């Protein structure tokens, strides 16, 4: 249900004119909810940035997510590749 809340809040922020990108752990749910931009990551529930105390991995996930901010071919649902 976290993904639904993310998508609803994300859509509302985007409607207010602010560019958004979200991380998704459940591709099936995000594909249905169609937020403007999402990065699907192959990590367990509760681990959206990958791993605790792994700044290097967290940085790569963030960089991949932020790279989607320039996209206007919404909805964008990309996959994070390590």
């Amino acid at each position, binding site marked *: *249900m*976290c*993904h*639904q*809340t*993310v*998508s*609803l*809040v*994300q*859509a*509302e*922020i*985007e*409607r*207010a*004119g*602010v*560019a*958004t*990108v*979200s*991380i*998704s*752990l*459940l*591709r*099936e*749910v995000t594909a*249905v*909810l*169609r*937020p*403007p931009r999402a990065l699907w990551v*192959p*990590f*367990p*529930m*509760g*681990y*959206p*940035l*990958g*791993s*605790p*105390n792994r*700044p290097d991995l*967290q*940085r790569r996930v*963030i960089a991949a*997510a*932020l790279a989607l*901010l*320039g996209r*206007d071919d*919404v*909805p964008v649902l990309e996959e994070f590749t390590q």
Partner: protein
Amino acid sequence: MATYDDLRLIDRLFLKGYPFARYAADPVPCAPLRRPLGEARVALVTTAGLRDPGQENFDRRHKMGDPSFREISNEVVTQSLVESHRSHSFNRAGLAADRNLVFPLDRFRELEAGGAIGALNHRHFSFMGSIVGPRPVIQETAPEVARRLREDSVDAVLLTPV
């Protein structure tokens, strides 16, 4: 990797049967990034149920899910944030060890220091995402968060679930 198959049977059946399509964005909104990231003001939004130790807890007994949010100051000590999510569908060990796993504020401070983003906003926002009746989110709390972000002249937002 998280798929439906990793979830408890009861959660899986619930998600399979839940009418997510009813809440799909249609049409999908699109706000282009107004300036390069190196000049952009950035804010974080999480649905991990994080709050400042001094803030009121989320209502874990709310039948349809607590639609409220907490403002998280940009000055907060990231690891001091309290996790009070009611969901049982994720392992808390990672988040307990490192809040950046769900709310990567320290990583964004590094990006700000290095000039990869223009600035972090003075506040961020936290929901507790276990909301099965999202109407109050749609009608009240999400528009309010959007309004505050707009008021702060935020250019870009990263949202993270758990």
